[in-house]
């Protein structure tokens, strides 16, 4: 029924699978940090703000800056949102869920407004559907190079600062006492989150980013007792789910982004159920 081998020769399918794999590897590391640091909705805020950046880039193209790629716009807005939400002063002064909510909707509204102003006869604009829900089929070789570079940056960062990141995420006060530059490291992690979010827009779109970022990590968290293992397992789970979601979407002719997210949702539900049954069975055995 499934003719995988036939598709694997097709270049756009190869790029699509590759994009899914690279993004999952980035999410294995960054998603794990987002989950253990309880930054899921900070990441959501960054993602939705980046939609404003995409609108901004199209608008700049409309004004004559043809080189202004939507990805650059998304990246600038994502990093801006990360710096804003990560700022100690902002966190101290205002409730974080309020600032996240405000940034979230302003980003979306700005995107809609600016894209609306663009002359669609002069400039080719992606459909809202592609931006919001992803269009992995349009992945170019250039996109893959960008994704690969971002992944390398993430890996270098984590190799150098794994221990400090672990400590900061577990116990910020103790990290500060031990001489870690807490503010700088927090900002670094948020900027990497912004980079990862930008990669994910291509694949699952602005709205579904949280799925790839958090579900593999959350599943992995159920079965690991070390942060490094959680990152590794989350990467493996992400690669498996993204690849099978991609192949399934070709087979069933469904939107790839949404298919991947539904698969991830199922995986999470079954893992929670599995873990629950495991704990019940174990406590029953110990009881006898």
């Amino acid at each position, binding site marked *: 029924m499934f003719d995988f081998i036939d598709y694997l020769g097709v270049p756009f399918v190869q790029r699509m699978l590759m994009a899914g794999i690279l993004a999952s590897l980035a999410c294995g590391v960054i998603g794990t940090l987002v989950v253990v640091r309880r930054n899921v909705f900070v990441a959501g805020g960054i993602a939705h703000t980046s939609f404003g950046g995409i609108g901004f880039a199209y608008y700049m193209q409309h004004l004559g800056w043809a080189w202004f790629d939507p990805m650059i716009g998304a990246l600038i807005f994502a990093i801006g949102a990360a710096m804003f939400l990560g700022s100690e002063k902002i966190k101290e002064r205002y409730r974080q869920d309020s600032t996240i909510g405000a940034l979230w909707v302003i980003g979306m509204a700005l995107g809609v407004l600016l894209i609306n102003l663009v002359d669609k006869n002069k400039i080719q604009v992606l459909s809202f559907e592609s931006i919001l829900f992803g269009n992995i089929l349009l992945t170019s070789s250039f996109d893959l190079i960008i994704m690969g570079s971002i992944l390398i940056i993430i890996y270098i960062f984590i190799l150098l*600062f794994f221990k400090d990141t672990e400590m900061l995420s577990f116990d910020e006060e103790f990290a500060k006492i031990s001489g870690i530059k807490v503010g700088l490291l927090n900002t670094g992690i948020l900027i990497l989150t912004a980079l990862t979010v930008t990669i994910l827009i291509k694949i699952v779109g602005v709205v579904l980013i949280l799925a790839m970022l958090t579900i593999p990590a959350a599943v992995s968290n159920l079965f690991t*007792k070390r942060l490094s293992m959680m990152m590794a397992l989350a990467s493996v789970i992400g690669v498996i789910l993204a690849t099978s979601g991609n192949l399934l979407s070709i087979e069933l002719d469904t939107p790839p982004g949404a298919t991947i997210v539904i698969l991830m949702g199922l995986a999470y539900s079954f893992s929670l159920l599995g873990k629950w049954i495991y704990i019940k069975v174990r406590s029953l055995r110990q009881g006898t």
Partner: protein
Amino acid sequence: MDLEIHHGEFFGLIGPNGGGKSTLLKTILGLIDPTRGNIKIYGEEPSKGRKYIGYVPQYSTFDKDFPITVKNVVMMGRRGKKGLKPWYSKKDMEAVKDSLSKVEMTDYSDRNINALSGGQKQRVFLARALVTEPRLLLLDEPTASVDTHVEESIYKLLSELNQEITMVLVTHDIGIISSHVSTVACLNRHLFTNNDTTISAEMLENAYQCPVDLIAHGVPHRVLPPHEHGT
């Protein structure tokens, strides 16, 4: 307030919530700058002097799903000595083993921290403070949320460690503290102390701003001076 803690002391600081105990601890650790006055740790500013301090926080503030082993928690105590280097050395590993054995938690080193009981977690955080090779241990409510039996064993361990390390312990639990410490002070905006191990009714009333019932146990040693009844 004016307070001097000498090397080798077992100093107990008690006081009601909101009285400034935590603020004082954070100021000693250099996390908050004092608005007035200054703090010296072995003659140095807190930001420098804190390398002599091992800090044991209240454990209840940690994320219960965080994936981390006991060994890795204790290893954090070596960060100050290790610096920016990405990996820990053999010497660091040895130090971790040593301090886990001091708190009798060697068997648990590969367990997830969240699989432990309250008292065991407290021992792990004590090990993390010890691995910094401190001259001074700063403990914030070390026996909050553990039962009396465990509490007693933790205090016994602290007394042993007190042979070499100065102890500063903060708690709102007046009952147990005075039978183990060498000096007690009460803090509620102002500091009250007799500079010895006794807590007087006057001290407590000043600190808590209301009459406090004092019960003298006499065991393991008398902590309250003989006092008149009915006043």
